[in-house]
């Protein structure tokens, strides 16, 4: 075991897979010699060479198309989109092309591509760096979307994503890159995609979260405990497909749910999760399922992040509403 930040765990996962499988290629804008704008690919080009870890011209759509073509030649591409706000440039390559390849080829061609990309607020980035756009990809059949919240999960989920033979978007929350360290085994291990984890057990209310909101939910749960409310915190880890079994098990125990996301209320995944719960467990609910989400405006100017981003106080407020319904 080693103590790693999430970014170190990600680098470790990339190194592991570059070593394991010669078809793994890591590339993007400044991921080579520079080691990535967040140092996620630090040292990898030196270790594996310019044929395996390389820079690309500055064009996200081109990077997407390059990935599709390399996958057609039997490679296992792990491209990076520097910030996920830039995904609009590559939307056709991702949702219009690689997501559909297996289906449109009648199952004859796969796309084992893992697109890594940072996102997320709280670090005062300039425009279109922090936007939560996971909902756009999660709505595309053929895609999987993974969002880790801890160093341990990041490594295991990234290794699984790279080994998956279908395309995965792997979103890395910028605020979680270096905010804390966690135990990460040095050897390789995997975490199944599509499996949530109960990060804290509780019996009074279920908080379903992903990304940075997992930590806000855990903090809210600590505060709520002081008031005698035991909150169970589920970290989805994969937001498409979602782990409906883990969610339902918890709902049947607590009978009250709040879904927490950083994205705007009209975006993200919360609505989908709520719909699934009401279809499958309405008789287990003591109160409506409520949402914690950002306001439905464009992502905040950086100085307004504190008042705009959802935080643990917003979660406590919603929990009190469902508990006192």
């Amino acid at each position, binding site marked *: 075991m080693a103590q790693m930040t999430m970014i170190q765990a990600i680098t470790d996962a990339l190194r592991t897979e570059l070593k394991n499988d010669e078809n793994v290629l890591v590339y993007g804008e400044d991921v080579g010699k520079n080691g990535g704008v967040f140092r996620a690919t630090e040292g990898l080009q030196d270790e594996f060479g310019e*044929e395996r870890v390389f820079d*690309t*011209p500055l*064009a996200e*759509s*081109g990077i*997407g*198309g*390059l*990935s*599709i*073509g*390399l*996958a*057609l*030649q*039997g*490679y296992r591409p792990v491209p990076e989109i520097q910030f996920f706000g830039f995904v609009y440039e590559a939307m*056709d*390559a991702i949702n*219009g*092309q690689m997501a559909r390849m*297996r*289906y*449109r*080829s*009648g*199952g*004859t*061609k*796969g796309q084992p591509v893992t697109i890594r990309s940072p996102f997320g607020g709280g670090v005062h980035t300039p425009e279109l760096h922090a936007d939560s756009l996971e909902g756009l990809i999660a709505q595309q*059949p*053929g895609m*999987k979307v993974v969002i880790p919240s801890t160093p341990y999960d990041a490594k295991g989920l990234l290794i699984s994503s790279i080994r*998956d*033979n*279908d395309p995965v978007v792997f979103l890395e929350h910028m605020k979680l890159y270096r905010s804390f360290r966690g135990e990460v085994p040095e050897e390789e291990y995997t975490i199944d995609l*599509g499996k949530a984890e109960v990060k804290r057990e509780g019996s009074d209310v279920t908080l379903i979260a992903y990304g940075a909101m997992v930590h806000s939910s855990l903090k809210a749960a600590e505060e709520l405990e002081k008031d005698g409310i035991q909150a169970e915190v589920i970290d989805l880890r994969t937001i*498409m*497909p*979602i*782990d*409906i*079994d883990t969610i339902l098990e918890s709902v049947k125990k607590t009978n009250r749910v709040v879904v927490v996301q950083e994205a705007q209320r009209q975006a993200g995944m919360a609505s989908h999760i709520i719909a699934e719960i009401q279809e499958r467990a309405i008789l287990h609910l003591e109160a409506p399922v409520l949402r914690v989400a950002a306001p439905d405006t464009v992502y905040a100017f950086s100085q307004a992040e504190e008042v705009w981003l959802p935080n643990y106080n917003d979660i406590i407020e919603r929990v009190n509403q469902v508990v006192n319904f």
Partner: protein
Amino acid sequence: MKRTLENIENQFETFQILNEDGEIINEDLMPDLSDDELKELMHRMVYTRILDQRSIALNRQGRLGFYAPTAGQEASQLGTHYALEKEDFILPAYRDVPQLIWHGLPLYQAFLFSRGHYHGNQMPEGVNALSPQIIIGAQYTQAAGVALGMKRRGKKSVAITYTGDGGTSQGDFYEGINFAGAYQAPAIFVVQNNQFAISVPVEQQTAAKTLAQKAVAAGIEGIQVDGMDVLAVYAATKEARQRAVDGEGPTLIETLTYRYGPHTMAGDDPTRYRTENMDNEWEKRDPLVRFRSFLEKKGLWSEEEENKVIEQAKEEIKAAIKKADEQPKQKVTDLIKNMYEELPSHLEEQLEEYSEKESK
């Protein structure tokens, strides 16, 4: 500034070998093709012209679906294809079904593609190609990736991709040629300039005098070819292929061509935007007429031979349509199973739901 532009444009003169009367005007550049190969080229062009005529008729009878006519473009489509090897990978656009057929896609599957059946897109083992791309430009960035993959694998093969004149305005067109250039990847980018993107003439796509000169922006070789001259198209592609497998990077080939029919069979009416004069002008340049008179002068082609090809084409088309008719209907469960290698839980649920419906 004007002088610079002129200097650039002067470097993209139209490359031609065979004139409209079927005479060789550029003997030095005549490709090295045997008599049998020359006849095979003619065979393919005649066959493809018949395929176009029959496809239009079958579409009108409702026995085919989406169809983008190809008549007029035989030299451009088949001349480029004839310069390829089996191991080369084709990334076609929606009009480039003939290249797929001559690369090995069975005709009945091409018809299933037209109708909208997934089996039409299941390339047989060893047919190195994607099914026709509908998103104009997407095939270009993907071709850069296929070509880079071939280079990294040390293969002596190329990726070839096609778009139209309108497609050169897309961002992906430029990104594709630029990526291939930056990596010196073995790609051949073909622009089939058939003068119109649906109703919009090429003059409204760009102020550039040629489309071939767009290669300059990527720092790669560019050539403009008479796209109605199958020998010139073949020679240009052959040379581009050689450069690519020799590690000298990609080439952009503009073929000047024309589609005699509408954009697609989905209600486009060319009389709204094309003059009869223009149609006549381009019909004089018909690639079949020109190549036929070239071969006849060499004693390599006769009416009898042509009629044999026509009969063969008609019979094979008939058999292929019959085989397409016999293909089992698609079920929702088929579509679900083709989504992922391992189905996620929500699709497992839906698979069960539709299996039950289908068993009733």
